């Protein structure tokens, strides 16, 4: 039957047509198409991986930023505390310095007071001695007799007065 017996001419041309088709496509089309398709598939896979990584990095960055912010806040608080402490110290020091100064001034005042008091005492003693002598002179003038024993007695009295003071 004709249907089941291959015709020579058709076999020949089929072979020629197929080999030509194969050569053309195998040389210029299929490798390039396959390469392009695989490259694109790779690109898409890489893109997905990249996006995932970028997302996780973004999440990390956010956490990091939060951490930095917290650290900065802590530092700020520390600095503020330090500043307050320093201020208090300064005030304290100023206050104690002022107190010391005031003490010194008052001491100097006391010393000078003492001195002036002693001088005044000395002057007073002399004046009182002179006064007493004048008094005694007046007394003795009345008694005419001026005795050494009496002068010694006066001196003794004066010393007594001085020690009493």
């Amino acid at each position, binding site marked *: 039957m004709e249907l089941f017996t291959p*015709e*020579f001419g*058709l076999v020949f*041309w089929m072979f020629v047509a197929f080999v030509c088709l194969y050569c053309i496509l*195998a040389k210029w089309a299929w490798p390039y198409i396959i390469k392009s*398709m695989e490259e694109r598939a790779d690109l898409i896979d890489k893109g997905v991986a990249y996006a995932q990584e970028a997302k996780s990095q973004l999440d990390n960055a956010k956490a990091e930023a939060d951490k930095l912010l917290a650290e900065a806040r802590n530092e700020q608080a520390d600095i503020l505390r330090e500043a307050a402490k320093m201020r208090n110290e300064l005030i304290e020091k100023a206050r104690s310095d002022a107190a010391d100064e005031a003490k010194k001034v008052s001491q100097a005042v006391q010393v000078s007071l003492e001195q002036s008091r002693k001088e005044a005492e000395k002057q007073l003693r002399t004046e009182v001695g002179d006064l007493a002598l004048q008094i005694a002179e007046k007394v003795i003038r009345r008694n005419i007799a001026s005795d050494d024993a009496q002068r010694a007695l006066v001196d003794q009295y004066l010393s007594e007065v001085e020690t009493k003071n």
Partner: protein
Amino acid sequence: MKSKIITAIVALVIVALMGWGYYSAAQHRAHGHTSELDPKETIFEHLGDAYGWEVPFNHSLRIPLPIIVWGQDGLHCFMSNRITGGETYDGFKISTSEEHNGKVVQVMPDGSEVRPWDFSITKNVAGLFIAALLVIWMVMKLKRWYVRNGMKAPRGAKGFLELVVDFVYGDTIRPILGKHAPKYAPYLLTAFFFILTMNLLGLIVIFPGGANLTGNIAVTLVLAVLTFLITNFSGTREYWKEIFWPEVPMALKCPVPMMQLIEVLGMFTKPLALMVRLFANMMSGHMVVLVLVLLIFIFTSLFGVGVGIGTSIFSVAFTLFMLLLDVLVSFIQAYVFTILSTIFISMALEEPHEHAEAEPVQEN
């Protein structure tokens, strides 16, 4: 609403064509062509090859195609319209004898007919070229897209083509052949697209299609032989060892080479099955459609025009169904041919078993 109008127009066209067909048949008969309908001859005429390509609605006009024959006295080339009317040209005519029916023969001086070497561009050969050019055009268009647009995904028809390429290569060839895939992919992809195009072109009734290419055993023979050659030329030591010294009990292979016989037979039955499967599937699809259409004419001639019209409604419906089924079969058979060729090649490429077990990571 729109679809109703389209349906009405299609129905009108069909009825008009039917009327025209009956009218022209009546005219044909009136002019004295008392041609009795011979279903068998009609079917085989449509399934087979022809010199010249018929034009719709015309019984005699054919697109002429070149006839190239190497006769007893050298090469002859002429157009087919010189002999398709039954004439003899340059000592050649289309035979009507039992032996060479429908083929070009050289008429010898003593009146005997000798078949020359026939390299004619017949209907089927022209169909092959058209299919090949179509495949080149399609694939080159896809390639040009990649050249121009780089990494961008193709749209529309090219996107569909890429889907098919990816289905055949990415989901079939690469998983089966692994690292050998790039080497054999061009052959397998070319075979797939060539077969698919030929299958689909065969379903189109008028000029660029209509040639029953993959339903012709010569075409499938060439494809099967190519797969056979590629398979056996890429056969590894292991492949040949499996054929001539398989790992079976000694009694099966030593005194009487029974396994060897079976294995060698298997070498040939595989491509034979490829050839017959594609051929039979495509041919039977065409044949069913032809028979369904012929039923109209058989019933008309048997029971009259009324029954013929009734039959035509059923026949057209079934023909439509069969043609749609054939579109599916076209894809399936092209794919089956490709996947089986891939599997045969992968079997020929097999490595020794110990090696495969030692380095399973390499095989991906």
